[in-house]
């Protein structure tokens, strides 16, 4: 089936973004409204496509739209083509839905910023690029959206780039993403060399004939791409710094949508990974490391946004892990991605609301007792909190529980290992999130006198309320009757695999709930009651290492940045002294011998003009000599 409407999903926000940029200050008055309406209209288109899709029989749910031939050279043919299937519609609704809520929120949040119009232009650009990412029908189209969202992220992290450290954070994010893009580039090359195609359908048709080596290589390169975009180990260090961007950006790009693109990429490439078990194992390992890594970092963060960022990293670790389990896990990876989109975006907006009421303070040591002053924020945030730690029946309970179950079901020692890691992650998640809740909304007031916190305006709390509803209900809706599993099966589980059970689901669920109780209890014991305004300084080496983000920046600096700078300096020096030096030496000795003849000439400019002439003459004479 084809649909003529898909292109508008991308074209509308792209056009709006360009318009707001080109009009400049002239659009300051209405730019934010316009951009929000455009974003809302993409949601309407998405919803219409969704309902149309439900009405169609399962076999013909996917729709495509070919726009034009983009690149065509020899056998390398890439159309600008779009594909909307059961997988991409889930993302379209998430991106445009959460995206629109965040547009609304930003109208109020950014109302004091004189560059609000530019902010909305960037947001619309992001929506366009992100939709292209999930709608592209080939790896190369996806790539355009992939780097497009990277650019949007760069621009938005650096929105206040007059602060040097914010500008650095933006650059760091882009470069880390480029390392991932290296992987995506090579993956496309492998695809073309092996299959002569780069479209998803073109590759899937031929995948059976490929060698496992090629598929493993391609899988690992796709994993590298996902690792860069989704802030997974070892390319995770940029995400914490990315919190330099305005908080609505952290909610939309660095929590709900862009950073989860790696999960989309792996799920979309299921036909590669399902035939490359080694690459799949690598995916699971990366996810497992990151889910623990992020959770551990989150334990010691006092900056509310950075604590949430660490949590995002960890939660995406869960999704990546699940996607590494193949057809048994894809649906749950996407399910957790969707529920996480609700509760994490909601909590980020909540954090923004707190900052809004607290003069942009981000240090939780300076918060405390805010529940009384910001009732709506604390309730919506609290619902997100219950969802993320996995309290039944909130959203995160269903999605995380299923991932833990799938991990155990991997079987054998591996299953026990990954399952236990996922459970341990759940304990730590419950710990750091309870800590965050207690430090922010409960306990003693630790803010400066005279700055009474206040609740945020309607335009800000309304989106938070909507997301809170999602945090409560989305999990059950996706879970009940295996809704999401059945919905996605035509894309990610065509053969309807029978999935074996290692532990009875009720056992896993009990374990997961126990994990939550343990985590909450430890945090409660440690952080109930009054806290001091500054972090304790007499702490163990472990705490200090965790506070330094498990030395992630130190490691990057030691392994890459310093050697890279040394190499650059060395090459610059060598270029001047050795390579150019050799040239100069040859040149000056040649000129030295020519100095005697110099007298014959009046100026060196003519010297060289003459040389050219002599050259041409020599050519003619030589040619003549040969012919005569």
């Amino acid at each position, binding site marked *: 089936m084809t649909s003529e409407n898909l292109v508008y999903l991308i074209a509308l926000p792209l056009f709006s973004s360009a318009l707001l940029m080109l009009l400049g200050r002239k659009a300051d008055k209405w730019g934010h409204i316009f951009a929000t309406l455009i974003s809302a209209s993409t949601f309407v288109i998405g919803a219409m496509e969704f309902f149309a899709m439900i009405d169609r029989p399962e076999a013909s749910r996917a729709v495509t739209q070919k726009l034009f031939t983009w690149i065509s050279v020899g056998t390398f043919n890439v159309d600008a083509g779009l594909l909307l299937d059961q997988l991409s519609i889930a993302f379209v609704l998430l991106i445009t839905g959460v995206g629109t809520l965040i547009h609304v929120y930003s109208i109020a949040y950014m109302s004091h910023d004189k560059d609000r119009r530019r902010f909305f232009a960037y947001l619309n650009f992001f929506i366009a690029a992100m939709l292209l990412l999930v709608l592209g029908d080939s790896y190369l189209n996806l790539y355009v959206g*992939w780097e497009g969202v990277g650019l949007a992220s760069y621009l938005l992290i650096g929105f206040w*780039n*007059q*602060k040097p450290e914010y500008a650095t954070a*933006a650059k760091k994010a882009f470069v880390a993403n480029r390392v991932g893009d290296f992987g995506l580039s090579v993956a496309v090359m492998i695809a073309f060399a092996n*299959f002569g195609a780069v479209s998803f359908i073109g590759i899937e048709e031929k995948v059976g004939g*490929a060698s496992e080596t090629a598929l493993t290589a391609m899988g690992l390169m796709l994993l590298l791409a996902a690792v860069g975009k989704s802030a997974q180990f070892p390319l995770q260090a940029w995400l914490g710094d990315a919190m330099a961007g305005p908080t609505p950006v952290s909610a939309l790009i660095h929590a709900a949508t862009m950073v989860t693109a790696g999960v989309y990429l792996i799920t979309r490439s299921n036909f590669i990974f399902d035939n490359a078990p080694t690459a799949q194992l690598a995916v699971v390992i990366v996810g497992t490391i990151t889910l623990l890594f992020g959770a551990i970092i989150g334990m010691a963060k006092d900056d509310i946004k950075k604590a949430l960022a660490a949590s995002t990293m960890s939660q995406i670790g869960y999704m990546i892990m699940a996607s590494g389990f193949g057809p048994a896990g894809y649906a749950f990876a996407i399910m957790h991605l969707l529920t996480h989109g609700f509760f994490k975006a909601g909590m980020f907006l909540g954090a923004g609301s707190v900052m809004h009421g607290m003069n942009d303070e981000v240090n939780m040591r300076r918060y405390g007792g805010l529940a009384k002053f910001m009732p709506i924020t604390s309730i919506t945030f609290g619902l997100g909190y219950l969802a993320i730690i996995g309290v039944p029946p909130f959203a995160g309970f269903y999605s995380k529980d299923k991932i833990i179950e799938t991990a155990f079901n991997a079987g054998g020692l591996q299953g026990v290992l990954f399952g236990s890691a996922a459970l341990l992650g759940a304990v730590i998640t419950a710990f750091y999130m309870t800590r965050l809740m207690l430090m922010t909304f409960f306990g003693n007031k630790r803010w400066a006198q005279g700055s009474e916190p206040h609740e945020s305006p309607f335009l800000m709390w309304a989106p938070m309320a909507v997301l809170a509803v999602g945090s409560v209900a989305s999990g059950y809706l996706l879970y009940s009757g295996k809704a999401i599993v059945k919905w996605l099966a035509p894309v990610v589980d065509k053969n309807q695999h029978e999935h074996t059970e290692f532990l009875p689901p009720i056992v896993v669920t009990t374990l997961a709930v126990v994990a939550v109780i343990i985590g909450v209890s430890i945090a409660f014991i440690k952080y109930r009651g009054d806290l001091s305004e500054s972090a304790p300084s007499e702490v163990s080496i472990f705490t200090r290492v965790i506070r330094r983000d498990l030395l992630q920046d130190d490691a990057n600096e030691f392994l890459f940045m310093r050697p890279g700078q040394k190499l650059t300096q060395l090459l610059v020096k060598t270029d001047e002294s050795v390579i150019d030096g050799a040239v100069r030496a040859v040149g000056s000795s040649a000129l030295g011998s020519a100095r005697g003849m110099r007298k014959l000439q009046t100026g060196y400019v003519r010297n060289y003009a003459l*040389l050219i002439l002599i050259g041409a003459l*020599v050519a003619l004479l030589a040619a003549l000599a*040969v012919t005569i």
Partner: protein
Amino acid sequence: MNLLTSMGLLPLIGAGLIALLPVSNAKLIKQGALLVSVLVAALGITMTIGFDRGVTGFQYVERYSWIPSLGISYQLGIDGISLILILLSVLLVPIVILAGWNESEGGRFSVKTFYVLILVLETMMIGVFAATDLFLFYVFFEAMLVPVYFLIGGYGSGARQAAAVKFLLYSLFGGLLMLASIIGIFVISGNQIGRTFDITALSTLEIDTTTQNFLFLGFFIAFAIKAPLWPLHTWLPDAAKSATPGTSVLLLGVLDKVGTFGMIRYCVELFPEASRTFTPLIITLAVISILYGAFLAIGQKDIKSLIAFTSISHFGFITLGIFAMTTQSNSGATLYMFNHGISTAALFLTAGWMISRRGSSTIADFGGLQRVTPILAWSFFIAGLSSLALPGLSSFVSEFLVLVGTYTRYPVAAVIATFGIILAALYILIPVQKALHGPTTAGNENLPDLNKREIAAIAPVIALIIALGFYPKPALEIINPAAQVTITKAGYSDPQPLVGGDK
């Protein structure tokens, strides 16, 4: 009248007329030069429209006997590759004139001389790409040095004299080697098919392996100096640093392409066997250039040198594409020549405006320009994104074609070359951060943003960068048949996909 000759003669006649104008009337001289270059550009566009995309071989062919006893003729013709490069040249000249309206002032020679030189250079550029007679090509190839020499040495800044001399010496050295090879091939043609410099005829010669290798090297070294390949590159940063931005655009954007153009037209098409012999070496040098140029760019403190080194990296990609010898890599390389021309033009022109406003080309002297001069800052930023080959912009298409085409034959080289995209992010975003972001550096608070003339010069370049990124088809349709011919002449065919291909 013949279109190619008319197009080539028009700037020369224009130069002659401008030479008659009084030196004092700088404005009239500039307007005259702009008018001439716009007319030439219009002819170039007409020629592109009339070009038959479906056929291979030379079009707009002209042939007049020149020195019959030596088989030398005045012979012109274009295929897709030469068309795209001529188009690039004639589009860039008016933009350069418009963008650098005042850069001719304060040189060693008069404003008038500057525009005469530019227009004479335009004639040479058209000639060098349109020549289908080897001797005629050589004449243009060498004669081109004269206006460039005076443009660098007469109107640049800093150590412009030294830079001009260095440029000239390098070029002459390469030119002499090429001359030796030309004489060699002439002798062989005299023995085999009768004296001729016609390149189509020359490509049918049977040359023994050793001779072919030597002749090939003569050409190749000349071209590897022109489109500098590591380690023959050290003249370029000096020249680019000293020359005016406009001259740098023509130098890096167009003249250096004579090198990569020559590699296709002369090295590969005349000496296919030798090309194959030297391919491993050349691919190695190309990959080194990509990474080396990028590292050196990262380490530069001067914005013009930085752009020059990014170009060395880009020339590495072009050379890699040419010698990987697949349809994709070869088409990609030719498209890359065009795209590099426009994106380097955008970079140099915007950097030039920054430099002339601030009176310094040191990156550290800038800062916070995004808030002081937003249009200038955005133009520089978009030019930078094009240089780092952001998907959606034109250079991505060409760079990716080169890489994907190279991978099918030389996967290791392609993967190593791909590291260049990470370094590219660094060499663009570091100067972007230093010059455009951060707090506004003292002394920069009141810099004026782009005026209408400057916007008029940069807007079409940026529009082209975006348009060809989304819709490269018109350019690829011109290039593809010619690239296919090159591959076939070199005796190659594309590797088949490993799965489901015809084995």
